[in-house]
Each structure stands twice: as structure tokens, then as C-alpha cells.
């Protein structure tokens, strides 16, 4: 369970995030939607202890993320290209992560093989091509796979469908829902695409100017409500 309590984050005296209480339950696929600058990435960075809030705290299970690092054992994430090490080849990068998480070679190969459709033959075995030389979409795939390969109990992804081709978007949705069903992992996914979010998330929150203004269970009505909210804004 991930709990955000009384969080306030400001930049240059301007409050960019103000969440009094948000709980993401175990096994939920939690979607975060909002317009540009709404505070989605700021919230995800806070969950990963990459920025410090002026007030409040984030806890993951029994751990307050700013105080311990235990939560990193079971948490994986991909927010942007800063999560890649671009002077490595994909194989070296995945190998580095496998060693970091103590995944043995056999298991690592098995997990990597699961991404073969997703990679579409364009990522692995590219004869010493560094990550920085890949297209944006393939970098996105490498980043997402680097998070999933650790088989985390908590997965945090920022705009995972960006830059992916339609086939890969469909594959990714299937991969995420299958993984959630198989492991019961908790997922927090931000996206601008309402269709993708409603396709895979069990719960969806709308964030606006740093405040969670709607928190919806995805029971079939969510898409209509989201569409109505965002169309009114247009």
C-alpha cells in the first residue's frame, strides 16, 4: 500500500502539489491523468524520493520513502530517459540491473525472453549499439522493460505509452494487465491518453494544479466522466 499524507511541494514559493490524503491499495492499477503541468511527474518523483516535499510524507508499505531505502527492493520505475544509462548497450543495461537486483543468469534470460514481442527484434542483438543511438520509442521500451524485468511489487510509470507505435501500445497494455493479474503488483501509471488509462486501470485520479480533484473507480463509467471533465475544460 502506498500512502501520501499531507504532501505540499512548492517551487519558487508556488505550490505545485497539495495532496492531503491519497492511498493506493495493494494490487491496484492506479491511473493518474491531468493536463500538462498538473503535477503528475512531481507526484511520481515524490513517490520515488527523488524530490523532497516541504510538508508531509510518502510511505510504501511500512516504509517512509524519505527515511529508508528498503522500498527500493520491491519498487521499479521508469519516468524518463534519465532512468536509462545511455552509454551502455541494452544488454549491458539489463545485465547491470539484473546484477543490482541479484537476478541469476538463467532467470534473467527467461525474463528477458518475455519481452521479445515487445522489442520486435529491434532492441537486443544490435551489435554494440548504445541506448543513446536508439529511437525514442525503443528507448521507451528499454526503460519500461528495465523496470518490469525486476518483477517489482510496486511499479511506477510516467507516460509509458508515449512514443510507442500502436502495436507496442497494445502489447504494453496486455503486458501490464497480465503482470498485475499474475503477481498482484501495485501499479501507478500516469498518462494523457484517457483510452489507455481506462483500458487498464482499476482506479483513476484526475490531478489539476497539484490537487487530486476526482478519484474514480473504473467501473465502466469512468471514461464518460473523464471525457466530460476534459471536454468541459476545452
Amino acid at each position: 500500500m502506498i500512502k501520501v499524507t499531507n504532501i505540499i511541494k512548492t517551487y519558487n514559493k508556488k505550490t505545485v502539489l497539495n495532496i492531503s490524503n491519497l492511498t493506493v491499495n495493494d494490487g491496484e492499477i492506479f491511473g493518474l491523468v491531468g493536463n500538462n503541468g498538473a503535477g503528475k511527474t512531481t507526484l511520481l518523483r515524490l513517490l520515488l524520493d527523488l524530490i523532497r516535499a516541504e510538508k508531509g510524507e510518502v510511505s510504501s508499505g511500512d516504509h517512509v520513502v524519505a527515511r529508508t531505502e528498503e522500498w527500493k527492493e520491491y519498487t521499479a520505475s521508469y519516468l524518463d530517459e534519465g532512468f536509462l544509462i545511455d552509454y551502455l548497450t541494452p544488454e549491458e543495461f539489463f545485465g547491470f540491473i539484473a546484477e543490482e537486483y541479484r537476478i541469476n543468469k538463467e532467470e534473467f534470460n527467461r525474463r528477458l525472453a518475455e519481452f521479445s514481442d515487445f522489442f520486435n527484434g529491434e532492441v537486443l542483438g544490435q551489435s554494440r549499439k548504445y541506448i543513446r543511438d536508439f529511437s525514442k520509442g525503443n528507448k521507451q521500451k528499454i526503460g519500461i522493460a528495465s523496470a518490469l524485468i525486476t518483477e517489482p511489487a510496486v511499479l511506477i510509470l510516467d507516460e509509458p505509452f508515449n512514443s510507442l507505435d500502436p502495436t507496442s501500445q497494445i502489447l504494453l497494455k496486455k503486458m501490464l494487465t497480465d503482470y498485475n493479474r499474475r503477481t498482484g503488483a501495485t501499479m501507478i501509471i500516469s498518462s494523457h491518453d484517457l483510452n489507455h488509462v481506462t483500458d487498464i486501470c482499476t482506479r483513476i485520479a484526475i490531478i489539476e494544479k497539484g490537487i487530486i480533484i476526482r478519484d474514480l473507480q473504473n467501473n465502466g463509467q469512468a471514461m464518460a466522466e473523464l471525457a466530460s471533465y476534459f471536454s468541459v475544460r476545452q
Partner: protein
Amino acid sequence: MYLYSHIWKSFIRNERWRRSLFARILFILLGLYFVILFLMLGFNLSTFLAREGGEAAGKFFMWILYYLAADYFIRCFLQQIPSLEVIPYLRFRIRRKKLVNHLLVRSSYSIFNILPLFILIPFSVMVLGPSKGAATTLNFITGCILLIMLNNLLGLLTGLLTRINSVYWAIPVGVAAVVALATGLGGSLNEPSRALGYALAEGRPVPFLVVVGMIVAAIRTIHWLLHRYLRVDLAGTHYRLRSKGASFSGRFSRLGDTGRYMSLELSMLLRNKRSRNTMLMVPFFLVYAVIFFLFMDETPGEFFTIFITTMFLGLGAMSYGQLIFSWESAFFDGIMARKNDLIAYVRAKYYLQVLVTLIAFVPLAVVVSISGRMSLFLLAALMLFNLGPNSLLNMLLATLNDARIDLDAGTFMNYQGMKGSQFVMTFLFVLIPVGIYVLIKLVANENTAIICLASLGIIFIAFSNWWLKKAIAGTFMHRKYKSLEGYRKLSA
């Protein structure tokens, strides 16, 4: 005109100017220092040549071709190619010709074009003017400026060609080889160089026409090349060319997690332009050390000898160490969000500093023992001091640096990621062991001074675990959020 206003804005709005007043003052002082240094060199050289009388101008002229060859060679490796700066404008309704012209003008704002003027103008005014008259002076200055322009264009042209195909690196290497072979086989460029100098000074039309013709040809070739290749992928071409680095994974596997991080660090150092250029300082300083110890006839004072040896020994490690966390600034969010062993990570960086120092120490020890100008024990003591206090304090200072580094940028005159305090500390790191040695030698004797330096080094090395865990990793974690925020700023 807006293209030029954008250059100016990108310069004055650079994140570095938003830093502390101290850093800004230091940057200005450094700039002034280089200007004064070159001006002094120009005036001293001119005063010296003027005293020589008669053939003074001829002595100056005989170096022109050597200078041009060296300048061209250095430009090929260090001069920035501003092609990346026009990429964002490609999508606008701006004629390609205009962009290319802008690029040509932009390339002239280079330190390589300005510094030689500080020598050229004093020489022309002080030596040529009084002896040969105003017209000769003007002719010579004009001729030299044209030659500098030509070199600038040839540097740019070679830079563009090497981005298109790495085989063109053969051009600068070939130029260097021809000059070296000609000189080594008993030939000399002195006479043709002198002839060129006199021809320019006397205002003979043929050399002027040839130089102007070459400039026009270079401009037309650059235009043709950029019309054909100025596309967004020109920026990426050089990446692909360089994707051939060795794999380092498993190279230090015996050291466990530390070894794993060392492999990662080594990949970073050798696969990226900025870090690789920084590491080139080690062999560069070693060549300088060979010249200093084996070929310089005049023996400078002991203080200076130790000072310069400490630089030879430690500058490579120090240049790497002072940016030790910033090197990975573009990837730090990922590193910190993942499970990691920060102590092993910091230790890996320390071991690599040790490795760089040892790589400098071994050949330096050979050179020093051949020359006999310095005690090997003193060199070993300096090495221990470098491995101990200097490396560890340098790393501690690096934890305070939260500036982002672009690993693909060049190194020359590139202070991105550098803070004013670091310039001062680098100087102090070189000065402190020399100061300790000189002071103790004054009050006691040379052996005591060497023992004190070595002991300080050994004590710090013995307690390196404490330094790495508590001081360096501790300080880094304490400043983590501030550092990560700094690393995310793209224009730092």
C-alpha cells in the same frame, strides 16, 4: 538578425551566470588571466625579437607554417562545430543558405581565432612597424588574419567531414605525419615559412590570391556539404561512428559490487566525449613531463619542480574526481530510484581515481629516475598524498557540485559543471603538498618532509573507508534532493 540575438541570449541566459557572485567573478578573472598571459607573451616575444635586430622578423616568420599546422591539428580535435545550434531552425521557413552563412559566422567566434591576435598584433606593431613601415605591418596583419580565417574554415570543414565519415580523420593525422616526417627526415618548414612571411609582409599578390582563393573554395565546399548533409541526423552521425567502445562488464568482477560499478564507470569515461577528453589529460601531461624532465636544459627551482610534478601526477585524477558525481548527472534519477549500493558506488569511483593516479605514476617514476632531478621517494610520497588527502577531499568537494554535465560536449574551455570553488580547490590540492614539503624541509630536513607527506597519505588511505562511507556518501545523501534538482537542469 534574430539568429545572432539567439546566440547572445543563449550566452547570457546560461545557467552558469546564475550561480554565485564568486563563480562569476572567477570566470571573468580567468578570462582576463588568459588575455593578459597571451598579451604578455606577445609583448615579451616582440621585445626579445626587437632586441635581436636585423633578422628579427625572419625569426618570427619561420614559425608560421608550424603554427598553422599545429593550430589546424588542435582545431580538428577541440574546436566546437556549431552545426547543432542551427538544427532547431531547420523546420522554420529560413533559407538553408542563410543558416549556413550563420553557421560560418558563428564558427568565427572561437578562442582559436582570437588568441593568436594577442601575439600577432604586438609583434607587428613593435617589430615590423619600426623597421619596415606601416604598409608592411598592415600587409602582414591582413595576411595572417586571412590565414587564421582559412585555418578556421579548414577546421570546420574537417569537423563536418569526420561527422559524415570517420575516414576523414586521416586528413589531420596525415598533416601531422607529413610535418613530423619532414622535420624528422632532416627537412624543415622554416624556409618556406619564412618565404611566406616575407611574401605576405611585402604584399605580393600571388600568396594573397592563393589564400583568398582557398578561403573561397573552403566556404563553397562547406556550403555544398551543409546543403547536402545539414539534417537533424548530422547531430547523431558522430554517435554512430563512436559506438564501438569495448565492453567493460565483468572486468573487475573480483571486486564484487565495487567492481561492477567500476566497469560501469569505465564505460562512462571511455564512451563519452567530455569524459574521454578529460582522461586524455593524463597522456598529455606525461608527454609534457617527459619534455620537462628530459629535454629542458634549465633546471627550475625545487618548489616549481615539485609543483609541476604534483600536477603531472594528480591532475588527471583530480579532473575526473571533481566531477565525480556530475558525470552521471543525466542518469542520477534512475540510479537513485533503483536499488543501489551507494557505498560500493562511491568506492568504485575512488578506486578509479587511484587507478588514474597510478597510471600517471609509473611512467613518471621512470622519467624522474632517468633524469635524476628529483628523489623517487619524494615522488612516491607525493603519489601517496594524492591517493589519500587529495583524492578523498576532492571527492568530498564533488558532493557539493550539483551542476549537470553534457557528456557529449568537448572539454576545451568548457567549464560546464565547474564551480568557482573547484578551480580554487584544484589549485590548492596542487599547492598544499608542495607547501607541506617546503615548510617541513625548512624547519627539519628533506627526509622528514618526505616521511610527513607519505604518512599523511597513508593515514588518509587507511581511513579511506570512513571517508567514503561517512564523509562522502553521507554528505551526498544529505544533499541528495538539491543535487538531483541541479542535475535535472539542462542548461547548467
